[in-house]
């Protein structure tokens, strides 16, 4: 809070939230640098179709349990429904009120979180191992028997409506939602995960109940549990709690491969924030999907471009020119598509200088490409920074949940290091030509429109909206 840092926490830019780092790795137990491995885990399926991952970790006497449900904004009939449903899980369950559950959980020093994202929803509990029985019971009730109490539901809605307005006070909190909408348009990947004030207002308790019934089913859910437990004991506990959870009607998932848009021309979404003192910007386009076989190599290339402090973008925009505190790039991947974007921010007066320099720096991928020394450095960096990403129970539980959501497994993970090692300069050229959007780039500029609208025109066809307007 009082900390002022050298660089934005993730240099690749917390701003873009899209810095999806390469996936982990199982490894041998030797502490060879870069050869970190995912500890052994067990995966099973209960008779009702519920997938269970068990990964014991005994460093501290804590446990994380996470449920991952295949339902997100892509399933929204009203914008924000999936996320609101996940939040509404915490409004009381199994005969206990919201306040009673909070009292119980807080008293144990534990926590319960829920969230909805583009393609998945999650419920997570973190607690001390000694409280396993109580916390699993609460977790089970909240996941499978939420009450969706009417009065609490109205209060939650009011808070979320206000939260959308608050998020819009901070350009970096919302620029990704604008970018997704610009790139994906009417496709489900263009859905605003948070919803808008009006869409949230319109959601009824019944809609949330029915969303829960449709998607929160054992056959559509995985539970990953990581921490200080004995696998056999935990298995029995989970079996006892979840075996009677019944499936309802077959889950319907949209065909996300259908009607994926293609950028026909360069476009600029200019979001006017009248009192802005800087311009926050992001540009890029549609890129790769989750299971792209070249992803590891692509992420190494991205490390060179905008994924670390010495990356080209940060070096040019920050270190060489002092235009910004940070610049970076990253991929956001979904099951059927994804985006690539470059982002930064700069004072209003230097908007053009910063965007132009970012574009010019991006062009270097094709003009000059990556030399051997830079590639070797990025490979070492990616490998060296890998192990700490999966050090906590929470991180591991999230990883197992993603495996379920996106259908990858330890084979993919195990090959991480060798894939990094295999990347050559020649191969990097192929990756650049195949996967980094080069033409018809899509731009979002959030700032003082009056001062930057003429600059915006130079990058493509401009649409101007007010940041306070109830949309993305």
């Amino acid at each position: 809070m009082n900390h002022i840092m050298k660089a934005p926490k993730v240099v690749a830019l917390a701003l873009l939230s899209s810095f999806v780092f390469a996936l982990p790795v199982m490894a041998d137990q030797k502490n060879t640098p870069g050869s970190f491995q995912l500890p052994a885990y067990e995966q099973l399926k209960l008779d009702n179709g519920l997938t269970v991952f068990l990964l014991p970790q005994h460093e501290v006497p804590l446990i994380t349990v996470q449920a991952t449900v295949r339902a997100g904004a892509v399933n929204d009939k009203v914008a924000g429904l999936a996320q609101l449903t996940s939040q509404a899980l915490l409004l009381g369950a199994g005969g206990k009120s919201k306040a009673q559950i909070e009292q119980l959980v807080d008293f144990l020093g534990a926590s319960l979180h829920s969230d909805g994202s583009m393609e998945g929803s999650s419920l997570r509990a973190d607690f001390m191992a000694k409280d396993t029985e109580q916390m699993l019971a609460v977790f089970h009730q909240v996941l499978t028997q939420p009450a969706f109490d009417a009065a609490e539901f109205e209060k939650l809605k009011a808070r979320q409506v206000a939260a959308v307005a608050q998020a819009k006070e901070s350009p970096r909190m919302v620029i990704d939602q604008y970018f997704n909408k610009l790139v994906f348009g009417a496709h489900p990947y263009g859905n605003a995960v948070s919803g808008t004030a009006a869409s949230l207002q319109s959601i009824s308790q019944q809609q949330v109940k029915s969303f829960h019934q449709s998607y929160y089913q054992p056959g559509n859910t995985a539970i990953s549990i990581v921490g200080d437990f004995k696998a056999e004991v935990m298995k029995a506990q989970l079996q006892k709690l979840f075996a009677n959870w019944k499936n309802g009607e077959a889950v319907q998932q949209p065909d996300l491969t259908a009607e994926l848009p293609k950028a026909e021309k360069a476009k600029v979404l200019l979001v006017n924030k009248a009192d802005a003192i800087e311009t926050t910007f992001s540009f890029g386009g549609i890129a790769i999907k989750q299971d792209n076989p070249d992803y590891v190599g692509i992420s190494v290339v991205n490390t060179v471009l905008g994924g670390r402090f010495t990356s080209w973008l940060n070096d040019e925009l920050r270190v060489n020119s002092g235009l910004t505190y940070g610049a970076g790039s990253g991929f956001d991947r979904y099951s059927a598509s994804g985006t690539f974007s470059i982002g930064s921010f700069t004072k209003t007066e230097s908007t053009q200088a910063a965007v132009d320099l970012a574009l010019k720096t991006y062009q270097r991928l094709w003009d000059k490409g990556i030399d051997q020394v830079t590639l070797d450095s990025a490979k070492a960096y990616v490998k060296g920074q890998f192990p700490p990403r999966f050090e906590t129970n929470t991180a591991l539980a999230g990883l197992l949940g993603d495996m379920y959501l996106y259908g990858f497994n330890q084979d993919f993970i195990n090959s991480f290091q060798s894939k990094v090692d295999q990347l050559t300069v020649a191969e990097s050229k192929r990756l650049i030509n195949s996967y980094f959007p080069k033409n018809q780039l899509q731009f979002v500029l959030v700032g003082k429109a009056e001062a930057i609208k003429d600059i915006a025109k130079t990058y493509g066809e401009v649409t101007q909206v007010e940041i306070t307007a109830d949309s993305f």
Partner: protein
Amino acid sequence: MKLKQSALALMLGLMISSAQATEARDIQSFTLKNGMKILVLEDASIPNANSYLFWKVGSRNEYPGITGISHFFEHMMFNGAKKYGPKMFDQTMEAAGGANNAYTTEDLTVYTNWFPANVLETIFDLEADRIAHLDINAKMVESERGVVTSERSTGLENSNFQTMHEELKGVAFRAHPYSWPVIGHESDIKAWTLHDLKRFHKTYYAPNNAVMVVAGDVKLAEVKRLAEQYFAPIPSQPEPEAVRTVEPEQKGERRVYVQKASVSSPNILLGFHIPASSSPDYYALDLLNSILSQGNSSRLYQGLVDKELAVDVFSYLPMSFDPNLFYTMAIASPGVKAAELEAALIAVINKVAKEGVSQEELEKAKNQKLMQFYREMETINGKADIIGTYELYFGSYQKLFDAPKEYQKVTAADIQRVAQSYLKKSNRTVAVLDSAEDKDL
């Protein structure tokens, strides 16, 4: 390292007490002849390690004209020395698989490195070079002013807390250097000179003014060898002058209003003067902080969010060398006026002072502390951070292992007493952030 049955559980005296000595012993320390203290925690759970270099210098060591220079310096430390010129610190570290960051507070400047354990020597080489031979290059200074100006602006653009915080501090402190923001006044960022920077480096970046923590897959003997080779030759300097100014006692409420047109509902930030972290009241204040705002069963959530007066609340107790502030903040629900929110926020706090807290709330806060401690101990990064934090703010990393006792000793009466002593009107500064201009009706 396995902490499972021992120091951890013992944190709040929940388990066997014999484990305490064992745990304190897991941390090894030595001091070089030039005064630099180094703490080492061997932990081979992942093939990585980290180093935290804590320098005892922050915005409290500044004065008007050079405000923000500690933080600026934190940036300059990456801009070239003798062996490793401009950009080479980061280039060398990243090519070795390492990453770094740094942060500045009111009290400290901290440099953090995270790296594969087998490149430990590179880290020592890089750090020693910039400590002993920093090259404060005029061109780099100019470019870095732009970076820091952008850092300041982006904070103000994106964070209401930052916007209010710097205004509140300026009012709550009229004498002590905690008065200005860590990032400094904009005019000072533009104005400090090479001479200011050189003097600053010589005074504060002396080995006798630093503590280093190394945690991870390393061996004490190797850390010692490298410290002797790379750090020991760096000469010590005279002790920096102490911060002399003591903030005079506040005699009545102070207020500040900040207008920002894009704010969608009023924000209220309160700051109450409290003693330094070394005060015995620290533990009671820390538990009070949890009782006020940790979890949805907390006082502020129940009193404001659940009542639909606020959409978000928090409270914050900084660790601090000198007497500082205890903060509480609330963001109004749509339609709730600033005055109404302020009154409700103050009512929640006054209720604790008047009626105290329940035994159950106290137990809850202690359980939350234990959980927080375990989570810090889950990673080598958390371990290095907490060990260093106790060494710096409480005088010794050993105090980490006294903390269980200290928290356990706190009674409900202590919580009420500190609420009464510190969270009172005459000791309070109120900041209001709202969209309308502040004007007479």
